[in-house]
């Protein structure tokens, strides 16, 4: 064996980089790319001829500092099954056609929602769940009148006699029909969808970095808050297929995101429940998606330990929506629904005197 063969022999036994190191490196690169894009859009490009060794150290240090500052380090420590399901869903979503809403037509979003109601009796909390359904009609021109048919909420689940009593005593919910230009119901601001959604990067690492920037300092943990933001955006805003796809890919990069149930049923539809357990929030939050179509079926939050009179394992809240195109919207309704019926007067943005 000559000296070169021996030298070649000893190179073989190194371990490849682990996934998190690869993800961090990629995130740093994508951050540099998005930073360059942002800078180029702000200024006329100047051809730089730096001595590269000096320029490099500064550039690398800047990016690393930025990543630490935005809490980006430590990306993507989840198992490959989650990444695979989310990636499959993302691919299906990006192939899916967005509903086309023609003139005079509406995008109709039918939502079923369950929420926990908690009251305090004799110093201890008593809770029960209510369910409600609503249909939101969004016009082709989003500045036109939106119509929101809101069903009355009803008791859905109780937890023992005190809970049953509280549910029975609760005031009966009222159905409402609300109508307002730009979706500015109840004297609120017009609905614009997610801030920044139009300018978000589609590359998953860069998108997650943008979401982390947006949610910095909020919630019980950066990872939980980033996932909450993604799920809320998917659940609340009618995001285009391409954004939905990018959000799935971004969710796959959040540490500790796992598959909780590969046949989860929500409101009669079955999908894969993917989410994250956050001990400090005492919840496991999940999104239920259909990997074959990329559809976002809904979301739910499950208690880890008993809380406010509800046992561990209770799904304290879930929402599920179906989107379609409607030829017409219900007639009637006013901008403030039941508040108008009660003779309330608008005193400010989302403020009333009754």
């Amino acid at each position, binding site marked *: 064996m000559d000296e070169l063969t*021996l030298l070649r022999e000893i190179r073989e036994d190194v371990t*490849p980089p682990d996934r998190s190191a690869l993800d961090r*490196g990629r995130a740093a690169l994508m951050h540099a*790319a998005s930073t360059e894009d942002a800078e180029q859009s702000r200024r006329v490009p100047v051809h730089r001829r730096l001595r590269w060794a000096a320029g490099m150290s500064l550039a690398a240090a800047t990016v690393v500092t930025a990543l630490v500052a935005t809490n980006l380090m430590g990306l993507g420590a989840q198992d490959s099954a989650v990444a695979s399901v989310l990636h499959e869903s993302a691919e299906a979503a990006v192939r899916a056609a967005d509903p086309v809403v023609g003139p005079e037509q509406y995008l109709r979003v039918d939502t079923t929602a369950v929420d926990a109601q908690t009251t305090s009796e004799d110093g201890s909390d008593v809770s029960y769940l209510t369910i409600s359904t609503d249909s939101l009609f969004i016009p082709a021109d989003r500045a036109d009148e939106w119509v929101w048919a809101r069903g009355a909420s009803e008791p859905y689940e109780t937890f023992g006699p005190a809970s049953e009593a509280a549910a029975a005593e609760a005031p009966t919910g009222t159905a409402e029909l609300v109508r307002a230009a730009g979706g500015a119901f109840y004297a609120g601001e017009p609905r614009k969808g997610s801030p920044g959604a139009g300018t978000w990067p589609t*590359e998953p690492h860069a998108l997650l970095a943008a979401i982390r920037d947006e949610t910095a300092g909020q919630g019980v943990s950066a990872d939980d808050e980033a996932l909450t933001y993604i799920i809320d955006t998917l659940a609340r805003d009618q995001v285009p297929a391409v954004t939905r796809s990018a959000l799935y890919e971004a969710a796959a990069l959040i540490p500790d995101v796992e598959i909780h149930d590969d046949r989860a049923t929500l409101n009669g539809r079955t999908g894969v429940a993917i989410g994250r357990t956050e001990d400090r929030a005492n919840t496991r939050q999940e999104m239920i998606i259909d990997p074959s179509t990329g559809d976002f079926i809904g979301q739910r939050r499950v208690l880890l330990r008993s809380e406010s009179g509800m046992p561990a394992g209770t799904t304290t809240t879930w929402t599920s929506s179906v989107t379609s195109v409607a030829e017409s919207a219900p007639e009637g309704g006013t901008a403030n629904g039941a508040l108008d019926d009660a003779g309330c007067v608008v005193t400010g943005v989302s403020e009333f005197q009754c």
Partner: protein
Amino acid sequence: MTNDSDIIRRSLSVSSAFSELYDRHATTIHRFVSRRAGSDVADDVMSETFLVAFERRRDYDLDRDTALPWLYGIASTLLRKHARTEARAWRGLKADHASHVAVDAFSDAEGRADARRAVDQLGHALHKMHARDRETLLLYAWADLDYEGIAQALDIPVGTVRSRLNRARRLLRASTQYETTPRLEDAPWTN
């Protein structure tokens, strides 16, 4: 198949396209650095290599289809910052690597002892070697670059590559003496 220069060309207008180059070569660069300076350093140098490459992509010669020599060159330059860690790695070669070599090339117990000594001497030789010669040697032996590739990586003439490699191999050979010195029964291992 898309070659590296296509990716770099595309990244000049769509900067995020550069991530494809990362996906292709990050692991390869990591392994090279990891062999030289350990996996902790490798994580950082791998990342920095691509940041530097991204910053400098406008200077890349688009006639070169594969970007690996260029990336190895950047990684090699970055590794100079980690000379101390690398030197420790050479000194630790015996413990870390001898068992592997023994399995592959030296079957009997006596052979394994020889392997440990040979690897030890190799580490010593690499440690003593001039940094520029060592850098050239390792691009040749571990990154599998040819003379032309090394010349591109280090931005030096091919003639310089040749002379550095000759010097490095001479020193290695003198240290290990494996090829030229027949081993005598019970003779002490010598330099």
